[in-house]
Structures are given as C-alpha cells and as structure tokens.
C-alpha cells in the first residue's frame, strides 16, 4: 500500500476542512483559517507522495457501482491527473497561507475559508474523477463556489452582480457540456460492455459512434470548456469577477476554476482527435481568444482586470495548443498542460502581488493612481517583475519554455496544413502580452507616485510575502523540468492508440518537422520587443499617449467598450431577446397554466353553488328522499328494475 491507494483523501481532506471551518472555524485560532490550511497542506503532501509513485510507474483506477448499470463513482490517477492535482493543491495552499494575512481583518473569515476549501475540494474532485458524470458534478460544485466567492462581499452591488454574471455565463457552457454527455451516453449505452461515462476511449468504442455525432460531442464539450475557461465569446464574466477578494481571483485564475475547461479537453482528447474538424475549431478559437483578450488588456486601467484579460489570453494559448496538436498527437496534451501549470504559478504570483498592492493602497485598483511603488514595497515589486517576465515569455523563465513550444507547434501546424492563422494570432498575442504586462508593471511600480495613497503605501506582512517568494521561485525555475514533463504527461495516452484515432478523425501526424531558426527565436523577440515598447512608452515617456487615449479615437472606443460584447449580451440578448421570450412565457403562464388551474376551481365552485339548492333544510324533504331511495334499493335488490 502506497500513497496512491489513499489518493481519494486529496479531495476528501478539503471537504472536511470545509465542514470544520463552517461550523467551528469561528471559535479557533484567529477566527478561522486553520482547518482550511491544514487540510490543504495534507492534500499537497498526499499529492506529492502520489506523484513520486506515479513517476515510478504506478497507476490506479478504482470504481464502485452507483445507481445504474455502468454508472460508477471512483477515482483515477494517471500522469495527467497527478500533475493537475499537485499544481492545484500546491498553488491553493500558497493562496490559503497568503489569505491568512490578506483576509485578516474580514469579519466573515471562517466563512471565506470554508468556501475556498470547498472550491479546492471541487477542483481536486474534478481532476480525480474517473468518469464524466462525476466530473460534471464537481464541475458544477466549482461553478457554485465561484459564484459564492466572487460575490463574497455581497454588500457591494457590483460584487453581487459579478457573482450572478459569472454563474449565468458559465451556465451556458455547462448546459452544452451536459448535452455532450447525454449525446455520448446515447451513442455508447447500447454497446455490449457499457463503459458509459468512464474515460476508456478505445478504438472500438469511438469507431462505433458516427463521425457527425463524434464531432457534435467534441464541440459540445468544447462549449463547456469555453464557458468554464472563459474563452471567446463566454469570457465576459472574468473581468467582472475581479470584484471578489484578490485571493479568490488568484484561486479562480491559477488553480481551481478556469483550468477545468482545459483539463476537460485534455482528458477527452481521444474524442477530439477522433472527430473530424473539431480540433481545427479548437485551434482557431483558442488562437483568436488569445489575441482578442490581449488587445483588451492594453486599455483597462484596473490592475486586476489587466491580469484577468491576460488569463483569458493565456487560456487561449492552451486551447490553441490542444487544437494544433492534431499534427503531433498525444504530446499535445503534455505541451498544453506544461503551459497550464507554469501559468498557474506565475498567475497566482501576479494576483497575490496585486493583492499586496491593493492592501497597501486601501483597495485602489486604478493603475493611474499608483506609481513609484518599487521603493515602497520592494519584495512585491521584484516578485511581480518575475511574474510579469514569466507571463511575457522572457527567455529562461517558465513562461518562455511553455509558450515558446506552443508557438513553434502552431508554426509546424501551419506548415503541415497550410493554415497559419493560429500561429499569427498567438504570435501577435505574445507581443501584446509583453506590452500590456509591462505597462502594468511600469505604471504601478516606477515613476512618481500619482496619488496620496501611493505615497504612503507599505509592504505586506511576512505571511503574505512568503508565498510570493515561493511562487516566484517556481515561476522562474519551473522551465528546467520541460523535457521531463513532456515525456511524463505526453505518455498519458497510448501513442499508438492516438495515432489510430487521428487516422479515424482524418488528421495526419507529423514528426520532427524542421523549424527555421528565425521562427524559433521569434517568440523571444516578441517578448523582448514588447517589453522594450512598454518601457519606451510608460517608463521613458517617449510617446505622448494622451493623443490616442480619447473617446473620439474609434479604436480606443472599441477597446474601451470591450468590443461592445457586454452591450450585445446584456442589452440585446439578455434584455431585448430574452425580455421578449420572457413576455411570451409570462403570457403562457398567466393565461394557459393559471387559466387551467383557476378554471378547475371556478367550475367546481359553480357546480357546488348549483347543487347546494337541494339542501333545503326541511327535514321532511330529506325523509322523503330517504324513503324513495330505500324503495328504489329494495326494488333493485328484488330484481324488479
């Protein structure tokens, strides 16, 4: 018996933490936080113990029957799952430790820790699941927790609205995902061995599904991933979700929520690669989102929203990687997951740093009111610089290794299929990423303080800066593990099987394509060039931006209004279209449903008021009725009538 046999405790421990925090957290050390931290520390230890065993070749897949034949609950550990588990529990632990300092003054501290504990439990359970139905249950749990936590400061109207928006927007994706599961069940339930929802995608099973259905299933799953991982066009909830506590943003963006969509696509990669056409859409959608969100990141002035758009953009990279992976097969999952995990490190780092900034500046989030923070909070400034370098893909940081490989693969995809669109998208996005990230850093940390608050900012407490240092180390050094990681996670799916599935889906796998040197160093040039441009504009002030930043500049107006997507979704779709549908539904409800109910009661009242006339109250009448009745009865019994 090794660690791996107790792997289900990885998800169970935070659940225990949730219950303890909820009921007795308030009466313990510092009014809460202790149970959440201890249980997630436990999860991290088990995850790392299990990782060591999985590196040695251990695998596990345990199922117990549930309520119907072929439907099971259980847990599964393979390389893909264990790297996710380690990342989620470790990053979540860092954020929880940090939250001890960040949420210190909050009156509902124990409730906060209970909810983040449940959030972590949901994500860990999602990764541990060995079948799609169980994954969907945890998927919904994660959605619920995000709603609760984004609206944690519910007394702020924006926070309450943001929670609702996040919940409803991701719900669109959830419905699509559920439809995908139903369609999959419809197709596999009649097979001789109904492995209905388990992740056993053998060639026989996938061959038995018609290709059109397979593509529909893959696209519906993609819809779920688009909702959860906030891809275009369902990304609108993420910027608003910044109304929650910064630690929650860090959890959502790095560890627990948005990576679930990428994990879903990675986990069901055999379906995607076996379905004709699905991965092309994945690649273009991911690439487009990466560029689209990066343009938006250029104009927002809210420090957390810049980071939010960068998350959307980076998730676009991961999805694009899975899409262009149609030419390299199983290794695509490894490449994508490597970016996911390095992103988790530097994004958690960036969010936690911005949390320190917010703490120091009395919750001012506007970059225009910052400036000169480098000398006032040096640890945070350096940590954030490391995070920003990693996000921009500066050579030798973790982000460089992961992003570089994605851009190269996209180029190979272009060579192999003639479709250079994803490559162009993500290459431009890489340039823009460097620009907006360093715009943020230069605006916040260099120059003169632009407000009273910035002049009197102070460094965060030790419990807040310690996780920053740990995460900064990972954001810098995680790249060393690159080739080891690719071999480990790339071996998650059987290469031979993936090859045959790719044949089924009509994709041609290529190996060892030559990439010219200029293409290989192009991402690094983009990163460094972007940083240089940002430095020129916001550090040296070579360009006078006030000429461009005005409401009369149509491009600026377009970006400022977020491409009018919020307007389209809220005013046009939500209010006009659904308003009209709601009107019809209301009329149907009032006239037909209520009409039936009220009609029945009215008819019965009318019958009653007619019949009551026989009750004269005169005893003789009753007696007569009784006698007549008895006579008729006797005649009937006697057989006369």
């Amino acid at each position: 018996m090794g660690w791996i046999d107790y792997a289900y405790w990885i998800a169970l421990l935070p659940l225990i933490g949730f219950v303890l925090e909820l009921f007795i957290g308030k009466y313990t050390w510092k009014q809460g936080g202790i149970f959440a931290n201890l249980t997630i520390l436990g999860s991290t230890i088990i995850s790392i113990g299990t990782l060591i065993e999985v590196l040695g070749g251990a695998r596990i897949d345990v199922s117990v029957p549930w309520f119907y034949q072929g439907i099971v609950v259980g847990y599964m550990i393979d390389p893909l799952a264990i790297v996710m588990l380690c990342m989620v529990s470790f990053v979540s632990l860092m954020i929880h430790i940090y939250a001890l300092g960040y949420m210190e003054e909050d009156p509902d501290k124990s409730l906060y820790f209970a909810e983040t504990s449940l959030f972590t439990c949901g994500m860990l359970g999602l990764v541990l699941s060995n079948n799609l139905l169980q994954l969907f249950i945890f998927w919904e749990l994660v959605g619920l927790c995000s709603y609760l936590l984004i609206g944690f400061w519910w007394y702020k109207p924006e926070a309450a609205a943001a929670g609702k928006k996040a919940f409803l927007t991701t719900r669109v994706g959830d419905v699509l995902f559920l439809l995908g599961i139903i369609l999959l069940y419809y197709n596999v339930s009649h097979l001789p061995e109904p492995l209905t929802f388990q992740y056993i995608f053998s060639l026989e099973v996938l061959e038995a599904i018609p290709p059109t259905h397979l593509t529909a299933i893959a696209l519906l799953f993609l819809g779920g991933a688009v909702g959860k991982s906030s891809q275009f066009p369902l990304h609108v909830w993420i910027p608003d979700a910044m109304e929650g506590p910064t630690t929650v943003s860090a959890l959502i963006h790095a560890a627990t929520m948005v990576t679930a969509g990428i994990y879903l696509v990675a986990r069901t990669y055999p379906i995607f690669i076996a379905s004709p056409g699905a991965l092309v859409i994945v690649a273009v959608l991911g690439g487009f989102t990466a560029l689209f969100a990066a343009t938006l990141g250029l104009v927002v002035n809210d420090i957390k929203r810049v980071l939010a758009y960068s998350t959307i953009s980076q998730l676009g990279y991961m999805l694009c990687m899975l899409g262009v992976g149609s030419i390299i097969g199983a290794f695509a999952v490894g490449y994508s997951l490597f970016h996911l995990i390095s992103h988790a490190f530097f994004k958690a780092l960036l969010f936690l740093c911005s949390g320190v900034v917010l703490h120091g500046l009395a919750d001012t989030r506007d970059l225009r009111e910052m400036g000169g923070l480098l000398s006032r909070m040096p640890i945070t400034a350096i940590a954030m610089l490391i995070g920003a370098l990693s996000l921009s893909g500066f050579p030798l940081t973790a982000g460089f290794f992961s992003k570089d490989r994605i851009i190269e693969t996209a180029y190979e995809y272009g060579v192999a299929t003639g479709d250079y669109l994803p490559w162009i998208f993500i290459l431009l996005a890489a340039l823009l990423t460097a620009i907006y990230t360093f715009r943020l850093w230069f605006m916040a940390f260099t120059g003169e303080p632009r407000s009273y608050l910035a002049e009197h900012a102070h460094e965060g407490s030790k419990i807040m800066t310690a996780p920053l240092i740990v995460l900064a180390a990972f954001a810098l050094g995680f790249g060393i593990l690159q080739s080891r990681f690719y071999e480990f996670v790339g071996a998650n799916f059987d290469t031979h099987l993936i090859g045959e599935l790719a044949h089924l889906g009509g994709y041609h796998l290529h190996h060892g394509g030559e990439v010219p040197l200029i293409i290989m160093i192009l991402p690094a040039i983009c990163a460094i060039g972007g940083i240089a441009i940002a430095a020129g504009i916001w550090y040296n002030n070579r360009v006078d931006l006030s000429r461009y930043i005005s409401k009369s500049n149509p491009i600026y107006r377009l970006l400022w209004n977020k491409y009018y997507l919020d307007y389209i979704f809220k005013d046009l779709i939500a209010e006009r279209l659904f308003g009209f549908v709601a009107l019809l539904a209301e009329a149907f409800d009032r006239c037909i449903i209520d009409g039936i109910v009220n009609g029945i009661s009215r008819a019965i009242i009318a019958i009653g008021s007619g019949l009551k006339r026989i009750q004269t109250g005169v005893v003789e009448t009753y007696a007569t009725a009784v006698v007549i009745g008895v006579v008729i009865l006797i005649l009937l019994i006697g057989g006369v009538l």
Partner: protein
Amino acid sequence: MVPLEWFLILSAILFSIGAYGIMIERNGLKVLMCLEILLNSANINLAAFSRENLMGQEFALFSIAIAAAEVAVGLALLIMLFRYMDTIDLEKFDLLRW
C-alpha cells in the same frame, strides 16, 4: 290461530302510516310519534315470526327498551328546541342551511 299474513298486513299498514307521517308532518312531536309507529310495525313483524322459538320476542323486547330511550332523548331535544325557538315546527330550524 291468526294467520301470519294478517300480522304482516297490519305491520305494512302501520309502516306506511309512519313513513307518510314523517314525510309530510311539520310538527316535531308528530314526527316523533310517527317514528314510534314505524318502530312498532317492525316489532310486530318480529313478534309474528317468533312461532317456533322465542328469539323474535326477545328482539322485540330489546327494541322496545331502546325505543323508550330514544323517545326520551327525542322529547328532551324537542323541549330544548321549544325553549329556544318557541316552536317545534321543523321548517323553522334552518340555521345551518346555505
């Protein structure tokens, strides 16, 4: 010996009188008396059929005893009604009607 049919005819006549009285009478006291006639027509039947054994007569005796109790209750009710309403006209008692 008087034939059985005569008793039955007498009983039928008495029953008809009683039933007629209940159906048309408004005076509570008369209704009560008609009820007694109904009851006694049944008693006559019971007594008439008890030629081989005495079981019918036993039943008739029971029935008379119970009828006595019933009359006591009925008369008491009528007295109370009269005290409240100053009448025993049954058509006046329609407080619970619609």
